[in-house]
């Protein structure tokens, strides 16, 4: 339940609930297939920054397109707004090795080695933004497949508002900000107790 309040609370500007907790693996696989068909190349520029990487479809804020002359402004991307991080949140990115991220999730779930107690977390949240959605789904499915049915997944999607700052190059202009939206996914991976 927490994930719902969380998503609606934090990345809330425009949320589309494509799934709730009952949606399982099939939905994810569908989503993944679509992602793969689309391919990463079409989605963003050459910059492989996961957090701020997507086609600019959002409405511009405070500035019209005509004003955005590259000679007069420099684009600076800001960090996306996010909630304080709990120990069982995992933010997936495109820079870290896939295996390492998968291992981190597994470690968190199994609780081996760390001082978090024997059982580990009963549930973890995997967050992916933009280009990293694909990878987040991948990680969740891998976790589920390797658990022999002990783990279940539930996905939520949301839209995250990203802020781009336009820094002026001339003294007379004010700095501008532009917002655009990017899609995000929050996958809850939880342990089901066998009956």
């Amino acid at each position: 339940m927490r994930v719902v309040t969380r998503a609606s609370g934090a990345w809330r500007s425009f949320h589309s609930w494509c799934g709730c907790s009952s949606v399982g693996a099939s939905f994810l696989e569908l989503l993944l297939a679509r992602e793969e068909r689309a391919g990463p190349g079409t989605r963003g520029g050459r910059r492989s920054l996961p957090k701020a990487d997507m086609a600019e479809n959002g409405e511009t804020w405070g500035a019209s397109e005509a004003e955005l002359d590259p000679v007069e402004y420099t684009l600076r991307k800001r960090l996306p707004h996010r909630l304080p991080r709990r120990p069982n949140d995992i933010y997936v990115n495109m820079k870290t090795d896939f295996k390492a991220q998968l291992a981190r999730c597994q470690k968190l779930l199994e609780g081996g080695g760390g001082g978090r107690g024997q059982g580990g977390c009963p549930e973890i949240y995997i967050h992916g933004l933009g280009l990293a959605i694909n990878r987040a789904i991948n990680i969740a499915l891998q976790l589920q497949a390797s658990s022999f049915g002990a783990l279940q997944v539930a996905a939520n999607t949301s839209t995250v508002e990203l802020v781009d700052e336009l820094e002026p190059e001339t003294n007379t202009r004010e700095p501008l900000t532009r917002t655009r939206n990017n899609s995000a996914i929050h996958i809850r991976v939880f342990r089901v107790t066998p009956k």
Partner: protein
Amino acid sequence: MRSPSYLPCTLLGRRRLEGVEPAALGPEGLWLCRGTPALEMSNAREKKHAKKMRNQPTNVTLSSGFGAVDERGVKHHNGNEKSFQYQKQESHSGAPQHQQPKSTHVPSEPCMNEQPCKSQCRGEKGKGQAGWRGGHQGAAREIPKYITASTFAQARAAEVNAMLKAVTQKSSNSLVFQTLPRHMRRRAMSHNVKRLPRRLREIAQKEAEKTEHQKKEHSKNKCRKARRCHLNLLLEFNRRQKKNVWLETHIWHAKRFHMVKKWGYCLGESPTVKSYRASYRAMTKHCLLQDLSYYCCLELNGKEEEILKALARMCSIDTGLTFAAVHCLSGKRQGSLVLYRADKYPEEMLGPITFIWKPEGGTSTTPVNRKLWLWTHPTLKQDILTELKLVCQCVQPPEAAASIPEVVLTPHEEKSHIKQTENCKKRKRESDGEKNTNPVKKIVGDGTRNPFQPYSWTSSTTGIVVSDFTMEMNRYRLIGPLSHSILTEALKTASVYTEVEDAETVPHSWWVEACKNPDSVSVHHRQEAFFELLGGIASPAEFPAGTVLGLTVGDPRVNLPQKKAKALPSLEKCQDNEKVRQLRLEGVPVECAHSFIWNQDICKSVTENKISEKELNQMRSELMVPGSQLNLGHRESKIPILLIQQPGKVTGEDRLGWGSGWDVLLPKGWGMAFWIPFIYRGARVGGLKEALIHSRYKGAPSIPDDFPDCPAGILFAREQENNLLEKYKRHPPAKRPNYVKHGTLSPFRCPWGQLTRDWESRITTRAESLVSPSCSWANVKSDPGREDLCVVEDEQESKLSCEAETLKDKPGEPEEMMDTDSPGAAVAGDTTGEGVCGNDSGGTKGTFCVLRSRKLLKLLAAWCHPVARRNRVAIQASRMYQQQELTRATCLPILRDYPRSLVWVSLSLLKKGNPELHTMICIPSKDDILLLNEDRLYGGPQESRHSDPFKAKARKQKEKKTEKEQKQGGQHCAIVCAEGTPGLWPGSLPDITGHCSRTLLGFVTQGDFSLAAGCGEALGFVSLTGLLEMLLSQPADKRGLVLLRTPASLQYRFARIIIDI
């Protein structure tokens, strides 16, 4: 002379002993037995012996057997009346072998024969062969009948004296107890004389006294208790901080940090606890706190247009936004820029600064005086201050200003006068502190500076007042995402007085006054609302860069938690989304940037009305419920502060927003009152080293290390070179790298001037050699397809020329090479430099400058990116930006305008490698890139070992010297001293770009393994000419690849050049 004479003697002694049973020898024989091995002197032992004998008195010459005779003489003097005093003179090398059996085999004449035997032994012991022989030859038969007592005693007395002197005189430079054998050593011998054997006590006593004198004189007249008494302690502290100023947090730091004296301050270098990684984590995930109060604030007060007009001469729009940028001018953002000497851009850089304008109050129609704060590093302050005075035409010191009619004097000026007189008073009080009953005040803020030095300057023509606000404010820096929660938990906004009281009764009259004004109250409420919102934002990087938020807060000591606990963001605060969104998009509006900290009067009263720690604790102890919240009511201080957001990493693509945080400006005197609450909320404290790491990971140049073209940077480089050289010299040559063999010409400094000069001459010589091809360039240039071909040709030619050079170098004698090459190169460099300067608009004369033009840097940044075939987006982007393609034609104007420039680059290692200070950045050859293409794990090429001609030369000279010494005695020649340290290149450097197999491009100024990136990362400068040359010669998809080589290694490592803008 000596050694051949006693060699046969030892042999003889041996043989004799072998022939004789020890019993027959008696105790002396046995003793001799023990003594003989010592006589068999090997070479080393001989040396050792010579060393031991070094301090023997000259009149006791043992080699001639004098000692033996002497001893014998003494012996007989005691026993018999026989003396062999003068026998040794006549003694000659006889046939002692014959004597030997006789003396031992004839026990029947004990009296006569034992004596020579004894004398033999003694003679052996005394290392005199003559005496021994004398003993057998003459002594046995011709024993003098009498001796004269007086002459004999006289002679002996002199010798005894000499012997005593030798015994008492210590030969080595070790302490007495150190000369004792191990089994005689006792614990605590070094400070308890009585543990030593009695005979050594006297000497040890003397030694102890000597060291006592060397120690610093303690004020022993006072006992520890008296010394630690508060008043005396303060006096002592005041004395100690006279030379190097202490920050307000000094004592806190001194207990936990390695302190260094730098820039006229005592600053914490790094914590004594191991915290390299912990501080990095704090910066990334938690919060790192730094005391930046040593940064200097300069205030300009005057009409806006006048200030802008004056300052416009010192900066250029080329390098980025200036003082006149709209958002900075309004006062809602902090700006940063690089200052130059007036009208000298792009040369003579003074240093980077940050600045804030005081927000305009209310009506903007009337031209009011504006205030501008410039924050500079202390090393840059003097240069910037003098230039500011020059630009604003402020020449008079305040005394002169005071004599000018009152109209010119601004209220601020008068105030500063008052302050100054107070200062003098304070000093006086300090000086006669013992007599004065008043407690001596701890020095804060302006008490630290010389009261007789002016710190405010007025201009009669422009009306600008320049004042030096050094140490007037505290500046703390919080870095990391948790800084929000620490700020919101530690600081509580001041409560507004609702009931209007008499302003005189309460101590904080300024706040009462402010509360009467509805405008300021509403501003205060808005500020409070924004401040509360901070808690709901996860990272300072979500704010617009340089946001300024003014605030008035209550005393942070009141709600200090009982225990240190980490402040964590709470979810509840994150709910108010519409407002947070607004804040993130627009930042803090201008009104909220206002703070009372700009008003000097208020600051002063706030400092003076601070409740002391003691009083606060007293009040706490009187609380009804122990440990409950203290309620001070109206007595609680209200402190105006200013929060300034520091953008973290804004350039580049990785780790955006890393290291962002907030700066807190406080009035002086309140340092510790804010420091402890921050720490109690879980901030980790860093020192100068952590600041360096912060700037390195941010990719920002640190001050003053990375500004080689400003005076402070040059000074820093020199100091660093001296330090490193000293450290290098402390190691013996075998235990330190031989930099000549590594081909490292300057391991301790970066010869920027020579680098740029060499590159310039390189280009010009090539242009001259390619006169005919250069004509055809114009035709070729239009055809992009053929360009590569030309480049290849070009490359080959350069290679050929390189080879020719090396060929020329190799057979030649190294000294000759140096002699012929270096002046030639220098001359060539000079002439070409002048030639270029003659028709050059940039006009860089002789010196280098750092390229800071944003337009050019952007162009370079785009060119440095590798352009892969499949990556069409970048190409499209560059087309969209109407950027020029990288061709020789486009490079030429740049090279013409900036012939001797450096470019600030960041380097990221592809695979292995850990760059260090002064790592060389080199151009990879074609083969290197090919090898890298073939083998993905290819580590990099290796530099072949260079020969060290100076070593052989030095050895030769040394030999010569020793020969000379042997001939002429101890004549010292200074040739070796002039040679320099072995392992370093002596004298002036040859052409540094072509010294190694890969062409040198630049140097790294900061480099290490980056915890943030997970690989080696470095920052440094490269020559602009070289960079363009390299980019032109590289294939498009491998552009920006360079090689790095640390000074003490032969291994090159691949790295990618990135220009962040």
